[in-house]
């Protein structure tokens, strides 16, 4: 306990030296809680069950001193959506909102889209009410670390409105004199709110991007949160989403992980009121010695809530994948329906997947299932395509893409599927 690693100590020292932009007493207090919580355990090691398969030792190679200034970025490199798709766009460079690169545009009544740094002054009470409240970080040291460094990120608030155009968020990280950033993001939807968030993570060189998300979907609202993680080959991306879903509301999450030296997307969803539903879907593809971890926890806390989860991946070379999916059905949460599935294609002898789907059920009348499969491409399928004249390499790519496309079709609204399938195709062609 007292033996914190030099890496953990360097984060603590960095926190001590930090000069935060917004100095609000309650926020300083929250950061302090964050660093104290982090200091009580330090970065998780593989001794901790939830981190058994993902070792953050790789961070030791990085000088993690926090990023304070954004360097110049070529805006054309941030373009990833079709030119004719109108969005409300926010760009964060090394965790800081970039006014120049962003284009939020006009927003309908009932919608607020802004940076956290700005919201701290314009909506201080609302921030105080929610930040650090939606999801606790006591047993989540990586989120605690994010909390210790809260400074900027995005804030999206939609009330009683269907937001027509998607909100586009781009997080770009760079190697610099200091290499870590900790954006904190807040999504609040209530009273029949509808919104789609298209989020992209990318970067250059070596860095740690450690994201925290707090999401509240309440009062028959629906949030679609589609994320593309394509960090640089030496980038490390950690993210923790804490979502609370209320009455007759839906939180849809889709995560496409195709980049980074190491990435871990952790999502916790609490279905808190009857009629709450969540769809957690994801695709992971990796090669070389990339490591991609998807860890999810769905809590069914009350009767009549539902969840559906499918993650599929393809791993080549020495790539390693991790899937940890946990569904917990609380005592009395009858009528719960939770379906979870994880399927992985291993494209090489040395690739590896650690898949751990788990159910903990304390109620009587529930419908829950989980399953996972691991396999190679079917010889019969490959022969079928080749017998039609399609050479072996494109035939393999077609089978892998087809296998993965099923989740994209299931997890993403039709209008945006192509954005993600195109990324998968491009990856296959490399």
């Amino acid at each position, binding site marked *: 306990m007292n033996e914190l690693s030099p890496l953990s100590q360097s984060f603590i020292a960095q926190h001590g030296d930090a000069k935060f932009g917004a100095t609000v007493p309650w926020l300083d207090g929250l950061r302090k809680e964050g660093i104290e919580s982090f200091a009580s355990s330090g970065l998780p090691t593989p001794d901790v069950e939830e981190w058994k398969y993902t070792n953050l030792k790789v961070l030791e190679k990085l000088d993690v001193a926090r990023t304070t200034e954004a360097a110049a970025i070529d805006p054309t490199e941030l373009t990833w959506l079709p030119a004719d798709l109108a969005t409300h766009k926010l760009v964060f460079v090394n965790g800081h909102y970039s006014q120049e690169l962003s284009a939020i545009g006009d927003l309908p009544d009932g919608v607020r889209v802004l940076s956290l740094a700005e919201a701290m002054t314009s909506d201080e009470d609302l921030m105080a009410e929610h930040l650090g409240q939606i999801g606790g970080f006591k047993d989540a040291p990586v989120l605690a670390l994010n909390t210790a460094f809260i400074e900027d990120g995005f804030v999206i608030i939609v009330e009683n409105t269907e937001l027509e155009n998607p909100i586009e968020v781009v997080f770009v990280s760079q190697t610099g004199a200091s290499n870590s950033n900790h954006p904190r993001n807040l999504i609040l939807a209530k009273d029949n709110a509808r919104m789609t968030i298209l989020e992209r993570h990318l970067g250059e060189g070596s860095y740690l991007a450690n994201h925290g998300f707090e999401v509240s979907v309440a009062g028959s609202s629906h949030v679609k949160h589609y994320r593309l993680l394509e960090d640089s080959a030496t980038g490390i991306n950690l993210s923790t989403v804490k979502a609370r879903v209320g009455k007759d509301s839906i939180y849809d999450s889709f995560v496409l992980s195709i980049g980074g030296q190491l990435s871990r997307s952790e999502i916790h969803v609490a279905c808190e009121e009857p009629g709450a539903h969540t769809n957690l879907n994801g695709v992971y593809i990796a090669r070389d010695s990339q490591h991609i971890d998807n860890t999810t926890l769905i809590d069914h806390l009350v009767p009549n809530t539902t969840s559906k989860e499918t993650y599929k991946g393809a791993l080549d070379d020495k790539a390693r994948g991790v899937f940890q999916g946990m569904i917990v059905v609380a005592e009395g949460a009858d009528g719960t329906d939770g379906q979870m599935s994880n399927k992985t294609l291993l494209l090489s002898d040395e690739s590896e997947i650690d898949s751990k789907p788990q159910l903990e059920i304390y109620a009587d009348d529930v419908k829950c299932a989980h399953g996972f499969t691991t396999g190679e491409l*079917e*010889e*019969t*399928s490959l*022969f*079928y*395509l*080749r*017998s*039609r*004249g*399609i*050479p*072996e390499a*494109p*035939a393999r790519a*077609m*089978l892998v*893409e*087809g*296998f*993965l*496309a*099923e989740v994209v*079709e299931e997890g993403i609204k039709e209008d945006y599927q192509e954005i993600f399938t195109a990324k998968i195709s491009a990856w296959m062609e490399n």
Partner: protein
Amino acid sequence: MLEIKNLHAKVGDIEILKGVDLNIEAGKVHAIMGPNGAGKSTLSYVLSGRDGYEVTEGLVIYKGKDLLAMEPEKRAGEGVFLAFQYPVEIPGVSTINFLKAAVNSVRKYRGESEFDAMDFLKFVREQTKILNISDDMLKRAVNVGFSGGEKKRAEILQMAVLNPSFAILDETDSGLDVDALRIVGEGVTALRSPERSMLVITHYQRLLDYIVPDVVHVLADGKIVDSGDKNLALELEKNGYANYTEVAA
């Protein structure tokens, strides 16, 4: 067109083909009939190049070339087509995209220009009508959720658009009801031409009512044991394969 000489092949340690000799001229339709386990499907897989079928003796000359030395995709490019007994489901890949990839692959191999999406759709629709294949079916994933009849019609559609000069139909009648059999039979018959040969593999005679063969062979225990005209198929329907299996045994 195709000349099979003393073909021996084994699967694992078991010899299945024990010296097959067969000559198929351009434009002719040959039928191969025979009891279960005679080696009919093995012959179709050896000709189309599937892994796991080891040729131990003999050769196959196709248009003057050594067919057995070619990879499956090259055979397809050269005009060999196999309609599968059990068409394979390819989840997540739409039928139309699969067809386009296949057709453009063989066109590229043959030095022909590739289709763009619009031209290809027009090209495919010329063929879908006779086979009663809807646009909706083209949008669905390859063979996924297709009925037995839909799968076989989709096979014949592939044959039509890939324009082969030698097509093997492996038990294409299996799993078909009378109406589906008629559609498939008419579809195949429409594809007969002086430049195209076919090898129709079947257990039963009924398919041959629709695809009338020029020559009928009996394959038993890995060898061609009898050949004749279309009337041979009718005799087999009446008398069964007992005579041949006894001979072979």
